[in-house]
């Protein structure tokens, strides 16, 4: 699965994207797996309430199942317009 990071999630993790092998059932499970990969990840995921997610380029929730997903993106609340 491809995992992307944007805005300060990208800066904290230090990556724009990476390939991740996971059996996580939900977005929240995936976030918790990633959070223990190192200090940079722990910092990025320290407050899940401030994290938004998209699955295959559609907005999703932390409890959305990951079954069949090929691309997951983590980012803060959007600030365009």
């Amino acid at each position, binding site marked *: 699965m491809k995992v*992307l990071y*944007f*805005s*300060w999630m*990208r800066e904290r993790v230090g990556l724009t994207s990476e390939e991740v092998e996971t059996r996580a059932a939900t977005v929240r499970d995936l976030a918790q797996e990633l959070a223990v990969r190192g200090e940079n990840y722990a910092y990025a995921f320290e407050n899940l309430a401030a994290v938004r997610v*998209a699955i295959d*380029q*559609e*907005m999703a929730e932390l409890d959305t199942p990951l079954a069949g997903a090929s691309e997951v*993106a983590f*980012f*803060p*609340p*959007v*600030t*365009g*317009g």
Partner: protein
Amino acid sequence: MSVSVQKQDFNISAEMDALTAGDRDIGAVVSFTGLVREMTSAGAITEMALEHYPGMTERALADIETAACARWPLQGVRIIHRYGPLAPGDRIVLVLTASRHRTAAFEAASFLMDYLKTKAPFWKKEAGPAGSQWVDARDVDDAQAARWEAPPDAS
């Protein structure tokens, strides 16, 4: 119906002419243009950088257009959103709506901006003499978007 996500600036007159060309049943065109403000809560800025999620951005903007067209009788919609480094005074975003009557054009443009602000994957980072920082999302934007969840006649 048309969406562009681009680095370059846009010309509002040219976009409006393209939107209305050949349709003499349009009575009202509303535009919204968003500009980079120099003064922010963190002081004067010198640059505003816009990051986005290529692919998802275009899809999200197209979905927002579709939602507006389902809700109002529109003869044309155009969204242009810039990304990359911008300076104070620069144009960020353009929304155009064309309809027979003004109420639909006004409401749809307002709706498009409210939805765009809360659903399109863009992130602003401001830079100034004191350093740079990501712009926080505003609760008021969520509230603005939420008012469209009620049926149109309820307002």
